[in-house]
């Protein structure tokens, strides 16, 4: 099946920067994401992960190479509106993506832009608000919502446009733990309903909720692995300034001290079992 997102040999630098290689934010990125996948892109600040995300719906265009969304190249101007309809995007700051003075009007904004007829609009708005758990708050002013609610409102605005892909561009990084949980739960349920999800984050903990994880650093994809594979190799995350899951840290430390554990642990349970077996030898 044709991938929904196809990135081929993409190079990018911001205008005005030196044209030498080291100023490129993205260097020769190749990537394809299939329909229904749940992918996390993880990397330290300044690694180019948000830049890459913004290329998925043509907010930024590559200097070299090509990005195709459902077969449509982002560089062709006529495709742009279809592409933005296909790929919805939730940004970092919950305050700076709400346009209207009521919840209902904000969800309507995208639909109005698409020219959706009014009767259809009303149906889609109530469905989207239900999906994010904001039914009954239609008349509320965005200012009175919590951070998590604001982000859910933004997600409703995207869902109403019925995209095939939703990209979360560090959408949880400004939220408190409560708001973060709300959004992460919503991401999981979106994935379950068949939407393709791309989650950009610098939290390893959040990344490990996805099925496939891409590590990006210094403008290049360093690792691209299914979750379980990455878990085994996650001691390498430290190299890129990212956090290593605690069980993996402990495992590595114990091995270094000469404790006979297997080379890789598959999960926390695995580690616990191994330590327990050693201790109960007596």
């Amino acid at each position, binding site marked *: 099946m044709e991938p929904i997102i196809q990135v081929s040999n993409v190079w990018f630098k911001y205008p005005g920067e030196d044209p030498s290689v080291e100023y490129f934010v993205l260097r020769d990125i190749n990537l394809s994401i299939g329909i229904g996948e749940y992918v996390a892109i993880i990397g330290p600040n300044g690694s180019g992960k948000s830049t890459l995300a*913004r290329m998925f*719906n043509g*907010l930024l265009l590559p200097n070299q190479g090509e990005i195709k969304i459902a077969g449509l190249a982002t560089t062709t101007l006529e495709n742009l*509106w279809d592409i*933005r*309809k296909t790929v*919805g*995007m939730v*940004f970092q*700051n919950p*305050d*700076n*993506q*709400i*346009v*209207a*003075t*009521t919840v*209902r*009007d904000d969800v*309507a*904004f*995208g*639909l*109005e*832009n*698409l*020219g*959706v*007829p*009014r009767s259809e*609009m*009303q149906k889609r*708005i109530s469905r989207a608000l239900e999906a994010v758990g904001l039914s009954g708050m239609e*008349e509320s*002013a*965005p*200012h009175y919502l919590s951070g998590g609610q604001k982000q859910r409102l*933004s997600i409703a*605005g*995207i869902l109403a*446009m019925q995209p095939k892909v939703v990209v979360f561009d560090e959408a949880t990084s400004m939220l408190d733990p409560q708001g973060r949980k709300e959004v992460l739960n919503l991401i999981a349920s979106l994935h379950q309903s068949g939407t393709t999800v791309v989650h950009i984050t610098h939290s390893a903990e959040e990344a490990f909720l996805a099925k496939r994880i891409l590590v990006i650093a210094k403008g290049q994809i360093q690792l691209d692995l299914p979750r379980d594979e990455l878990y085994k190799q996650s001691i390498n995350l430290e190299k890129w300034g990212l956090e290593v899951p605690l069980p993996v840290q402990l495992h590595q430390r114990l091995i270094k001290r000469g404790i006979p554990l297997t080379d890789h642990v598959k999960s926390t349970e695995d580690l616990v079992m191994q330590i327990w077996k050693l201790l109960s030898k007596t």
Partner: protein
Amino acid sequence: MNQLVIGQYVPGRSLIHQLDPRAKLAFVFAYMILVFFANNIASYGLLLFFSACTIYLSQIPLRIFSASLKPILFLILVMILFHLFLTKGGQVLFHFSFLTIYEEGVRQAVFISLRLILLVLTASLLTFTTSPMDLTDGLENMLHPFTRFGLPAHEFALMMSIALRFIPTIWDETEKIKKAQMARGADFESGHIFRRVKSYIPVLIPLFISAFRRAEDLALAMEARCYRGGINRTKLRELHFSTKDLGLVIIFAFLVLGICLLRE
């Protein structure tokens, strides 16, 4: 936000709330012009009576209206003093050394303050009973015929609604930055006026920078949601002209007639 913003929408289901925003906008505009034609007790009385009726019908507590008058109290006071002491004509009512108060001065002082109060009450009634979205929609709709002369009605309305959306956010931010600078020893309260204005620079610069950042973010988010100007756009809100709105025309006609008969 810890403060009631002047001109804030007060949700409700009163008759006034239900009127079409275009009808309200047009009526308020015409009514404000009409206020300038009143020139005696009787004509001002008629307008005051009418405004009192609308305030009653709006079902909004009186104290919210009185709060909206607070910011202009100083202006009213200045106007009153100005007319009391400087307008000459009619009988002398009071005389003490260089102060002379004439009958005409008192008349003018009363009428000018009444006029100001009427204008503010009417404008407040409009913003209290009409949601910002309805207001901007109404405005956009009324300005629409002028788009053929190059007036960007849609952009204008969108700008207004975004501004309304961000006022509370930026207000909160101002408070936060103020507190942060106060913690660094900034003093916003003492000193003469020039020094006090200058002391706000450490608040204003961060505020501007943040406003630009917000604008950039918002533009990106709007673009990502397929915004491309007013073309081929549909609207969630539909405006309906009803018989109630027609009633406003009839009421206005009576008011004009009344003022014509009563004024001197």
